[in-house]
């Protein structure tokens, strides 16, 4: 009688503890049922990774491509076998956190690849399923696995649907009811925005707008009252805009899904900030015909998913950061592994900095208003906490896993130098590969366009705020203004 599978309920209703196991599934008739069932057991989101090795795969770099393909990496991006391919595969596997790693046609793989798969499964506390088809004797392979310290069980293919059940198919959602076309929002600035909206919109449309406006107002007030530091109001009245910029980018405006939602949120935020003496100005004149569409973050969920199909973890993470911050990666070289807080997806400022100082970073010597504007324009991301969107967690975890596999410790850089290239060049190349992969072409990555737009010494020329033509300045108190 075969032992029950760990991680499932036993007849007495107890959940058995999971431990790494290798299960050889015997399919002596080599029928089509195994392949058909594997199509139904789900994918990464169900905790299962199904590897379908390319026929006649014989080397670990080649097998790595198959594992990366199983992890939904874009096969076009997997240009060739590399020595680091298997490490990338293990890193993405670690990020996927599978409970089951299935190798189809395992009987055709060399023992070395079976051992590599066993090691990868054990690293992730996953059960390894080896689908063993045909009349090939599995015992030599089982002996090789045992010699390497792995215990195996065997099952018959008829038991596979019970042992590795199919994932229930989700009923397709009914098509959403067509919503009314969103009305054109007034171009008025924040003091008159609501009044103009009430005059221009229908009652229903204004009601919806007012609800969203009220929510944004509430969130802004909540943020302002949470802590004085977060409010950006430090003792003495000097404006520290960094926390405010971060909040705008990561919580208030950046995550909005459309320009329509972002504009309403912006106007509400401006109104609340103005009451506490902060002018969040928006110069829409240079942003094109639909300027509100420039407000939300360009690092959208579809873009994150596209980045997740990159095989190289540094490409995915560096590009995600660059698009999140809307800067090239000049400052990314400062972060070490110890600066990364995975639970909150936050990169904290390092103790020491390695970025090339921009020549105009003389913020402390500027007058107050210029200083504020300069800080907004020249955001140095490594000087302050940066929190990535939640859907980038797999990308971050994959890269951290990859760095650990490289032998990196807490004090080692998040983005190390590659070969003879400098760390900054390595990051720049990673971002270029990543943006090309997702079809993004930000102007601030192109030196010629940077020179044309911002002549002068090479410096941090873009930031989340400047790309949206947003700026911050204190509103002088009427008594101070005299």
């Amino acid at each position, binding site marked *: 009688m075969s032992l029950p599978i760990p991680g499932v309920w036993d007849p007495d209703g107890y959940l058995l503890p999971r431990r790494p196991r290798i299960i050889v599934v015997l399919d002596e008739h080599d029928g*089509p049922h195994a392949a058909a069932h*594997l199509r139904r057991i789900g994918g990464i989101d169900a905790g299962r990774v199904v590897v379908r090795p390319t*026929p006649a795969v014989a080397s670990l770099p080649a097998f790595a*491509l198959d594992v990366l393909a199983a992890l939904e990496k874009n096969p076009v991006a*997997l240009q*060739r076998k590399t020595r680091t391919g298997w490490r990338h595969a293990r890193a993405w596997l670690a990020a996927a956190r599978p409970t089951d790693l299935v190798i189809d046609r395992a009987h055709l793989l060399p023992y070395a690849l079976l051992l590599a798969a066993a090691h990868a499964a054990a690293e992730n506390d996953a059960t390894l399923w080896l689908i063993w088809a045909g*009349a090939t004797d599995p015992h030599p392979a089982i002996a090789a696995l045992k010699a390497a310290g792995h215990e195996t069980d065997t099952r018959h293919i008829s038991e596979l649907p019970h042992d590795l059940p199919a994932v229930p198919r989700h009923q397709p959602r009914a098509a959403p009811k067509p919503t009314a076309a969103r009305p054109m929002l007034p171009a008025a600035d924040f003091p008159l925005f609501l009044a103009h909206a009430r005059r221009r919109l229908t009652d229903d449309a204004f009601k919806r707008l007012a609800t969203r406006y009220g929510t944004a107002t509430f969130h802004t007030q909540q943020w302002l009252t949470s802590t004085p530091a977060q409010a950006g109001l430090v003792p003495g009245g000097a404006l520290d805009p960094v926390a405010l910029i971060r909040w705008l980018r990561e919580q208030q405006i950046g995550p909005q899904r459309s320009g329509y939602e972002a504009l309403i949120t912006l106007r509400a935020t401006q109104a609340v900030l103005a009451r506490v003496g902060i002018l969040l100005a928006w110069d829409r004149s240079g942003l094109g015909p639909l300027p509100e569409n420039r407000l939300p973050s360009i690092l959208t969920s579809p873009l994150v998913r596209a980045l997740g199909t990159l095989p190289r973890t540094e490409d995915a993470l560096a590009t995600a950061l660059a698009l999140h911050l809307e800067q090239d990666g000049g400052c990314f070289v400062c972060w070490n592994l110890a600066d990364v807080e995975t639970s909150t997806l936050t990169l904290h400022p390092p103790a020491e900095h390695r970025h090339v100082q921009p020549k105009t970073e003389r913020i402390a010597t500027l007058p107050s208003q210029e200083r504020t504007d300069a800080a907004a324009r020249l955001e140095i991301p490594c000087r302050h906490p940066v929190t990535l969107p939640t859907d980038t967690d797999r990308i971050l975890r994959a890269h951290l896993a990859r760095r650990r596999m490289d032998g990196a410790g807490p004090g080692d850089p998040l983005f190390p130098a590659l070969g003879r290239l400098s760390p900054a060049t390595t990051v720049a190349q990673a971002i270029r590969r990543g943006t090309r992969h997702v079809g993004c072409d930000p102007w601030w990555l192109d030196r010629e366009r940077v020179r044309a737009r911002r002549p002068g010494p090479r410096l941090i020329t873009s930031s989340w705020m400047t790309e949206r033509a947003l700026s911050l300045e204190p509103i002088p108190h009427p008594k101070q203004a005299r």
Partner: protein
Amino acid sequence: MPAHFLGLTGAATLGTRHFHLTGRIIDDLVAHKAVGVVHGPAGTGKTFAVDFHLERLRERDAKIAACSLAFPSEPTMLRVAAELVRALTGSAPPNSRSRFQLINTLIGLLAGPRRLVVVDEAQRLNGACIEMIRHLHDHPQTSFALLYVGGDGCWEVLSREPMLKSRVFRRLPFQPVPSEQIPQLIRGYHPIYAEAHDALLLDVDDSYAHGTLRDWAVFTHTAADLCREAGRTTLDKEAVSNAYMLLGGGA
């Protein structure tokens, strides 16, 4: 309609049972994206039947893409993959493509419109090639029907691979036409046979064609020319005798 042997003119398509079953099998494979095998001795009409019904399929439903390919003796897996790319795209894959890239290219191509892939001379494939084709057919992203066509020994070769034998949905072994069916069948094949005696037709089959349709095509080509030169419209003993001499003496 596919051309008859050596461009034989005036010949009709013989609606044998196997001919019609081939059409049914192709329709079934396309409907279920399944695997099928059509096999039999050389000259029994397999390729003609398959080509005829592929044309019918293309004319009936332009959304189904059908492609045929055949390989030289003992092709390698890479050769099979490259020829498949060529059959699907019309051009050869770049030389620098790795096996992984080539197979992923094929997965992409075979994930597209409804498709039937016909592999002729399938008895030339080895286990590695069959495994590669199986990999493509079983892949969750692909969606195509697959028909293996082969001559002598084809089924013996293919059935040695459990991964293929277990996946065959339809199989049609072609056989030579039984002699009792010859007179009625052949009389409809070419005008020279319309008024010919049964005994004469049976003699031709017994001495030369032996139920093989290609051999009947060869004989008909020869006999039709002889009848035309002699100003005859019907096959007779003299034409048969003269044809035998041109074809190596009959039997």
